[in-house]
């Protein structure tokens, strides 16, 4: 009895793996499964290059041969500059790179020098500024010295012209508070100063000493309300008394309304107060007005009483040269 197709006959099995009994009862061999093909191997870098060179070997051979012979020619041919072509080609090939490197080096060096110069310039700038400040200070000092020199020279000249013995003094302080017009000078009793000694400058009268200390003295300015000096109008020869207003100006009193006084007229000391020597400038008439009996005359002091620095204190009337000869 035949078994169904595909079934082993009579229960017979295939004698070995890979075989089976077919319909006709014949043994059929089944080919084993074909192995999967290996994936293609991807060539790596050097292999690619090698394959490329092998494929184009004739071309690379030609290039190599031509290059070798061109080098040979360049070693022999010498142009007009008397240098072989090889040298000329080598120099021409390297020159752009050398120029580029030189450019980079110059740029780097230039930048470094610029930074260094900038730092140096900053340091120099600071030094110069310090020197400038020092020089400016010195210049100011020199200018101050020159001004002081001029002022002192003027004082000296004025002193030489005065027929009085004087002591030069420097204003070292002023009185605090409003309404008080006094200054302190650096000469006192040890220099022979005394109360009521007149104090003058080349411009005019300043005031008189009202207090003497061993090494300093206090001077009452003309503009103080307590101050007063005998005045004489230089043009009209009218006499009066100059008194301070306490506000930087003076007032000429006891000048009759009938006396001719005009603004701008100079007022000098009359000498009648026995304090100030005669003829010293007191001030200039600013305004003139008639009062009840006397004129109202406002006088601007001749001396710059708000900028006093060096003054002369009249200590005694200097003897005349004839009297000095007679004495000796």
């Amino acid at each position: 009895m035949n078994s169904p197709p595909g079934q082993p006959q009579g229960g017979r099995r295939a004698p070995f793996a890979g075989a089976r009994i077919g319909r006709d009862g014949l043994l059929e061999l089944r080919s084993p499964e074909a192995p999967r093909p290996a994936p293609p191997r991807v060539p790596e870098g050097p292999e690619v290059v090698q394959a490329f060179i092998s494929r184009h070997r004739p071309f690379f051979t030609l290039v190599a041969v031509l290059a070798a012979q061109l080098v040979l020619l360049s070693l022999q041919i010498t142009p007009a500059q008397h240098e072989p072509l090889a040298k000329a080609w080598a120099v021409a090939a390297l020159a752009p790179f050398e120029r580029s490197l030189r450019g980079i080096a110059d740029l780097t060096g230039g930048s470094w020098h610029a930074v260094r110069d900038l730092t140096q310039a900053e340091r120099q700038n600071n030094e110069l500024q310090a020197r400038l400040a020092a020089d400016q200070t010195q210049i100011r000092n020199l200018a101050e010295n020159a001004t002081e020199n001029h002022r002192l020279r003027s004082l000296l000249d004025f002193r030489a012209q005065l027929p009085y013995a004087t002591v030069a003094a420097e204003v070292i302080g002023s009185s605090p508070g409003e309404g008080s017009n006094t200054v302190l000078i650096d000469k006192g009793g040890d220099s022979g100063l005394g109360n009521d000694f007149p104090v003058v400058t080349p411009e005019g009268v300043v005031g008189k000493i009202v207090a003497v200390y061993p090494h300093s003295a206090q001077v009452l300015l003309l503009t103080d309300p307590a101050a007063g000096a005998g005045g004489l109008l230089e043009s009209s020869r009218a006499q009066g008394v100059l008194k301070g207003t306490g506000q930087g100006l003076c007032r000429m009193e006891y000048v009759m309304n009938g006396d001719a006084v005009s603004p701008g007229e100079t007022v000098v000391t009359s000498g009648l107060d026995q304090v100030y020597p005669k003829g010293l400038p007191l001030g200039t008439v600013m305004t003139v007005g008639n009062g009840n009996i006397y004129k109202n005359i406002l006088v601007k002091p001749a001396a710059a009483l708000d900028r006093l620095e060096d003054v002369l204190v009249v200590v005694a009337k200097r003897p005349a040269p004839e009297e000095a000869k007679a004495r000796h």
Partner: protein
Amino acid sequence: MPASAERPINVYRVHPLTLWVAAFLALVLQTFLPVVLPLARLLDLPLLVVIYFSVTRRSKVFGTLFGTAVGLAEDALSHGFLGMFGVVKALVGYFGAWASVKFDLEQFLGRLALTAALVLLHSLAVDGLRHMLLESPPPIQPLDLASLVLLNSAMAVVLFQVLDRFRRPA
């Protein structure tokens, strides 16, 4: 005539002795002939030898190296600089081998045309090299160039027939 994919390429072999004897004789004749025959100045037997063997061997590497060797030998025998003819004959050998694979050169006309082209290439390359390297190169004379091409092509016809007797199929 361009080569087709199905055209059988005949490769020949030449005995190395034949190769070098032919080159040697070409050089010797090239130096001797102009003395007795002024027209021989226009001939370039070493060039024709290079063309023949490069085409016959169909190998670009061989053509380059053989052309270089013959060119350098020619330079050594001439007053010029070493490498002048070596460079141009290397180019001729290369392009001759290249053309032998690309075109059918078994026919007479094919050979003649290739020879003429390579002779022209050789002359132009020499002039170009002189203009490039020398400060005062000689001027290019078109008539001389044409005469040179014609004479060498005619000489090649005879020479190639003689040399064909010494080649064997590979």
